[in-house]
């Protein structure tokens, strides 16, 4: 649910980074936080367990600049990937304007990617969102690891109809992290 503040000429969007456990969602946000600090408005908030696993969500507010006289603000969130946090994950996804689905390219994560994507679609349907028009970008992460699925396989699993734009990423090194953010920003702004 984007918010338009005509008084301040601001539009705010909520973007959620979704995906299976340990796929690199928090790493994406941390990279953004350290790379474009001048655009960060406020703190990077992480509600994590003692072992740095996301418990509830991470939150990063950005102010990108203005387009056609409107300041564009983004609120980036991650969901907890672990299975037990299914309902927490669902609650973070509520009222989102766009999604980055971060998939783990490792072969052994194949089924987890598929399950997490399915879980996301089911949650969106339950919220009454239109899955066809929801802005979604795929990020195939950890492309530097040795034991990974081919892009064709990942596409077959998550993007059979080639409906979504995808990026091959190495979030830890920042490769294609900003490009992914840029792509989802384009989709949500164009929809507003």
């Amino acid at each position, binding site marked *: 649910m984007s918010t338009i503040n005509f008084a301040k000429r601001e539009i*705010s969007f909520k973007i959620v980074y979704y995906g299976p456990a340990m796929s690199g969602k928090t790493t994406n946000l941390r990279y953004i936080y350290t790379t474009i600090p001048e655009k960060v408005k406020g703190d990077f908030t992480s509600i994590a367990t003692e072992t740095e696993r996301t418990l509830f969500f991470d939150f990063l507010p950005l102010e990108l600049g203005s387009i056609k006289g409107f300041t564009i603000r983004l609120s980036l969130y991650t969901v907890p990937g672990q299975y037990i946090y299914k309902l*927490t994950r669902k609650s973070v996804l509520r*009222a*989102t304007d766009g999604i980055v689905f971060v998939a783990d390219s490792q072969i052994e994560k194949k089924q987890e990617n598929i399950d997490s994507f399915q879980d996301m679609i089911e949650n969106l349907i339950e919220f009454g969102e239109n899955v066809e028009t929801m802005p979604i970008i795929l990020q195939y992460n950890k492309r530097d690891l040795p034991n990974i699925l081919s892009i064709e396989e990942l596409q077959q699993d998550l993007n059979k109809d080639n409906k979504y734009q995808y990026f091959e990423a190495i979030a830890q090194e920042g490769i294609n992290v900003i490009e992914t953010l840029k792509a989802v920003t*384009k989709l949500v702004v*164009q929809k507003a």
Partner: protein
Amino acid sequence: MEGRLSKVQIVLNEEELKKIEELFGEFLAESEARDIVLLNKSGELLAKSGDITSDVAQNISALAAGVFSATNELARLLGEKEFTITFHQGQETNIHISLITQNALLAMIFDNKLPIGAIRFWAKKTGTEIKPIIEQAEKRAESQTQKVINEDVEKDIEDLF
């Protein structure tokens, strides 16, 4: 139904924002609240009053909406449609979060001087007063079919990064 409503935007114009801020100012003085923050279910800050900075208010909005949304999953597990109020009590500070329209939440922060009953009273009174303004803004957003940004923004967004 709930899904459809959850997508309603809140479009505040200058007059509405001014009115809300005026009311917040009055209630702040009367109720001895420390800060008042108006947010939507997505966790976006709509208006604030008090000494709180915008950055902190933005973070409070994100967390309050998160708490509220999680509480509602809890409600559903217990067979309840929705919990409309959450309240957190600390040594020095209390925060009262209440749902005032389908999409807007009001967070009021108090020192520990005030009894809980008074906090609930002031939160309810403030919520009731600003409810019509928010509803008007929601209604307008619902009927607004025209896009805010019509032009091709691809290049503009490239330039932002």
